[in-house]
């Protein structure tokens, strides 16, 4: 019997009423009195010496308020990087200056060179066309392996090379890993590319800067997943504004997928220019700008090898990855191919020895940073492709090989520094075999073949690490931030609650799911609880939302604050009921004295807290408001097994996804409908990466996939009806809700299943190509089939 409220209920998303009826308040909906508009003149070449920027003609154009160039920001800080990686030699990474506006050089197509603030956007754009640039072209550095060769042109002249860092993990294991490969009965080697992606949230980025000359207060409205982080990074490191004079507001945000975590130049510019122009300054990204200025995702080139003993046990794994950083270090870019990738290389398997090498490389391309999954999809893809290749080389069943090597005892300490607290990989694989109807595959293949099509079945497992923590550990790993979360629970006099959370919802459904938790704890209706987020002025310092952390970390902070509320309310109730505090029980929104029929309602207690006439003033303060900060003791480890079934047209190479099944273990679940929706969205993006999406540059650094004419996004008709199951639940052991996070799983777990299925289909047609790179487009499949 489904619940109709509280934890476990599929409560309808209350936020959807405003989103679906056009009543949302997005950043572009914010228009301030007297605002001016900025247009950024962006580089149309990938690499060049910026000799001069002549704005004299443009200054005289109609409507121009002020024109800024890189020279205006010489005294302003660099756009900061939030994570410092230490390389295998103990040296810190090379960290170039990242100017707000290009100065001295341009380093990628789309880099802002000048900014025109004008009365209207079209006047700003007209004036930008009158700016005269003198740029001397330099050879572009695009291919990562070429970029690190001796004598390659340097993206940053003041760095020793284009190599940001050369990371080895775990360096002490390297010798033992190499020895295991020498001793192996079988070695499988795979070289692959994890294709570069553009996140493409439905809402492009927007920034509105405001400055109050009378008070010296700055406000930035921005499309961010983490307004407190932006306030800290921009205030402390770029513009030198203390937090108490800087408010950052991220109102309704239309999708982020990671690309709205980062602090961008346009935010700093609008904040800076609002003061310089003494009027609000607004920037709204066009979709074309988004393609060349939003941080991209993925872009790894990897060689991975597995060593197995004669009984097909995995004995060692080693990987060698080139990770593209783009032209500058975006906020969390260095952490993605290292701590979010290397630590996941054990996957679901008890491989005893692992060594991961990652070379992070600067190129003349848009910066690359976290995108849904961030490092974990890259790890999962290479590992799960490799395991499939092992199975085919050895002539064993891919699922049996996986099962044989599964981790089965928990907690499990991997050789890559993390400890999985719980999981049951056998259970999710069993569930997958059931829900994917593996038994019926042979008949479905026969039916496809009767139509002249090939049919393939592919599986993969995944392990994810969510809610990256604890802060003291991530500090040792190079994070320049803590990774706790915060919540203030404010109970009003008549019993309603407001939760001010440091988490940020940009589509996830926090406004629905978070109240379900408190409703369960107190026993009151969900509609008595409101969630406030996204404004540094009225929420406690929080780290925002990414890495599937909101419920596991932010939800835990909310639980801790609510526990404090309940503890205090019990004291008040015990006074009102003239009973001992230890005898007070809270159930269904009422406090009662154990073993009696004496009780007092939640609302009477909350009223007493604010109208404290009959109140233990000598013992406790009036009011009912508590704050908690929660710093997890470990990551959470969702896991699962996915199966994809494709049909392949051998004449055209066209692949269609016919069936997709996902069996996930997310631990405890607060709202099953929202979880299902998160998996659906993740699968769409994972299938998009596997089949369609490809961000590509030519050798001159021109972005070839610069619009939807050439960048293929998955549409509803490209996707099947999914079979999604999350009944396998091994609750997280270290957070109060036992939850693990579900936001990224679909994007992490699906690409290898798709590619494994395509290769299976090709094999059934007599063509075993070993590997095919994503996206598996018709042209690539046809070329592989006919190669």
């Amino acid at each position, binding site marked *: 019997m489904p619940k109709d409220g509280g934890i476990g209920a599929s409560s309808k998303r209350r936020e959807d009423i405003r989103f679906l009826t056009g009543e949302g308040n997005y950043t572009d909906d914010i228009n301030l009195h007297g605002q001016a508009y900025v247009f950024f003149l962006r580089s149309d070449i990938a690499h060049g010496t910026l000799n001069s920027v002549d704005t004299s003609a443009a200054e005289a154009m109609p409507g121009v308020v002020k024109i800024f160039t890189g020279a205006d920001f010489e005294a302003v800080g660099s756009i900061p990087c939030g994570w410092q990686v230490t390389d295998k030699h103990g040296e810190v990474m090379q960290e170039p200056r990242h100017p707000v506006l290009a100065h001295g050089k341009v380093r990628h197509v789309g880099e802002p060179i000048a900014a025109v603030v004008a009365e209207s956007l079209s006047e700003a754009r007209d004036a930008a066309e009158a700016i005269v640039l003198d740029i001397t072209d330099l050879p572009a550095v695009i291919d990562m392996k070429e970029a690190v060769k001796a004598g390659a042109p340097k993206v940053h002249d003041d760095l020793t090379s284009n190599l940001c860092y050369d990371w080895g993990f775990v360096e002490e294991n390297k010798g033992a890993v190499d020895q295991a490969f020498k001793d192996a009965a079988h070695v499988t080697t795979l070289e692959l590319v994890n294709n570069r992606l553009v996140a493409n949230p439905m809402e492009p980025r927007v920034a509105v800067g405001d400055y109050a000359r009378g008070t010296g207060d700055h406000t930035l409205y921005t499309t961010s997943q983490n307004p407190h982080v932006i306030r800290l990074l921009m205030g402390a490191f770029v513009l030198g504004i203390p937090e108490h004079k800087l408010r950052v507001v991220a109102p309704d945000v239309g999708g982020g997928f990671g690309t709205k975590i980062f602090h961008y130049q346009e935010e700093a510019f609008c904040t800076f220019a609002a003061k310089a122009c003494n009027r609000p300054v607004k920037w709204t990204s066009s979709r074309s700008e988004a393609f060349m200025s939003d941080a991209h995702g993925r872009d790894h080139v990897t060689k991975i090898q597995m060593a197995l003993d004669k009984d097909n046990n995995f004995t060692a794994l080693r990987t060698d990855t080139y990770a593209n950083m783009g032209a500058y270090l975006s906020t969390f870019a260095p952490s993605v191919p290292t701590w979010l990738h290397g630590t996941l290389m054990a996957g679901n398997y008890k491989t005893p020895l692992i060594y991961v090498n990652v070379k992070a490389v600067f190129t003349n391309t848009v910066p690359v940073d976290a995108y849904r999954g961030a490092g974990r999809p890259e790890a999962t893809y290479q590992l799960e492709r490799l395991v499939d290749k092992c199975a085919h080389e050895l002539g064993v069943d891919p699922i049996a090989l996986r099962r044989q090597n599964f981790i089965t005892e928990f907690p499990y300490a991997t050789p890559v520094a993390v400890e999985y607290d719980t999981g049951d990989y056998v259970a999710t694989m069993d569930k997958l075999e059931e829900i994917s109807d593996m038994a019926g595959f042979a008949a479905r293949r026969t039916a496809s073949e009767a139509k002249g099509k090939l049919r393939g079945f592919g599986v993969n497992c995944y392990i994810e690490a969510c809610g990256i923590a604890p802060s003291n550990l991530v500090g040792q790993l190079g994070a320049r931030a803590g990774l706790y979360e915060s919540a203030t629970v404010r109970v009003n006099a008549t019993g309603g609650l407001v939760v001010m959370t440091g988490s940020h919802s940009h589509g996830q459904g926090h406004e629905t799911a978070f109240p379900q938790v408190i409703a369960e704890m107190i026993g009151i209706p969900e509609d008595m609880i409101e969630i406030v987020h996204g404004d540094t002025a009225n929420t406690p310092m929080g780290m925002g939302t990414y890495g599937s952390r909101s419920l596991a970390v932010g939800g835990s902070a909310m639980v801790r604050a609510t526990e404090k509320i309940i503890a205090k309310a019990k004291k008040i109730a015990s006074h009102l009921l003239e009973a001992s505090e230890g005898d007070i029980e809270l159930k269904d929104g009422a406090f009662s004295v154990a073993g009696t029929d004496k009780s007092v309602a939640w609302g009477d207690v909350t009223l007493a807290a604010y109208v404290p006439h009959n109140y233990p003033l000598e013992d406790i303060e009036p009011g009912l408001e508590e704050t908690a900060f929660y710093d997890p003791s470990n990551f959470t480890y969702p896991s699962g097994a996915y199966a994809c079934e494709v049909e392949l047209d051998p004449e055209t190479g066209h692949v269609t996804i016919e069936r997709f099944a996902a069996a996930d273990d997310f631990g405890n679940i607060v709202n099953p409908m929202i979880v299902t929706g998160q998996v659906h969205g993740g699968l769409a993006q994972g299938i998009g990466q596997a089949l369609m999406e*490809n961000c590509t540059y030519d050798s001159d650094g021109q972005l070839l996939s610069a619009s*939807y004419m*050439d960048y293929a996004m998955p549409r509803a008709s490209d996707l099947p009806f999914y079979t999604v199951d999350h009944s396998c639940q091994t609750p997280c052991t270290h957070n109060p809700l036992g939850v693990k996070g579900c936001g990224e799983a679909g994007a992490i777990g699906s690409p290898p299943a798709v590619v494994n299925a395509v290769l299976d289909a090709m094999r059934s047609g007599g063509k075993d190509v070993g590997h095919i790179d994503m996206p598996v487009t018709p*042209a690539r499949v046809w070329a592989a089939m006919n190669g």
Partner: protein
Amino acid sequence: MYNFDVEKPTSIADAVAALGREEAQPISGGQTLIPTLKARLAMPSVLVSLRGIAEMQGISTDGQGRLCIGGGTLHAVVAKEAAAQYPALAGLAARIGDPAVRNRGTIGGSVANNDPSACYPSAVLASGATVVTNAREIAADDFFEGMFATALEEGEIVTEVKFPIPEKAHYEKFIQPASRFPLVAVFVAKFADGVRVAVTGASENGVFRWTDAEDALSSNFDAGAIEGLTVDGGGMISDLHGSGDYRAHLVGVMTKRAVAALT
């Protein structure tokens, strides 16, 4: 976009006069031109809208039994109103772009633009249609002159397209996954006196007739008749979405499928 004037004539004669203005640019559905203007890749001084000209609207049949479609007729209208007489053409129109495109875009605009990946030119060419302008009638074989190039003179407007109706016809499209324009599409039309095969999406010279296939199919209208026939990948478009050889291969596959759908 840059500023421009807009004129909205109600007759072909007024439109031709308006197009005599300096830097004038005709606009029909604007499905190519509006994005071009928004990207500031064109700077006309005046846009002459052809959407208010009643004599360029709608579908009729002439004395020779040809289906005559006004140049300003929307794809959505062709999809609906040509379905009974020329289902292959209506089917083509029904799958151009998305509903928004089909309710703005026009046949005249598409034919005049001659995008190498547009759908309509293949139907016009395979049908042996006649393109009617304000000044003359041009046979389809003489109209399409290469990528984005046509026989139209400056200021000349496509006012109507007259389609002979084949005994049977089929349009087979393989889409480019991002734009959903044809990566390669083939329109096969079988007439009493022979078969015409037009290919769009593939060639660097825009829509073309695959005459080898036409000859083979004219003597034996069966998918097997073109087995072994190939087009040269050399002159084919090669880009992110497929090589010239892949496109050349798809020309054969799509042609076979179009014929198979009719036999």
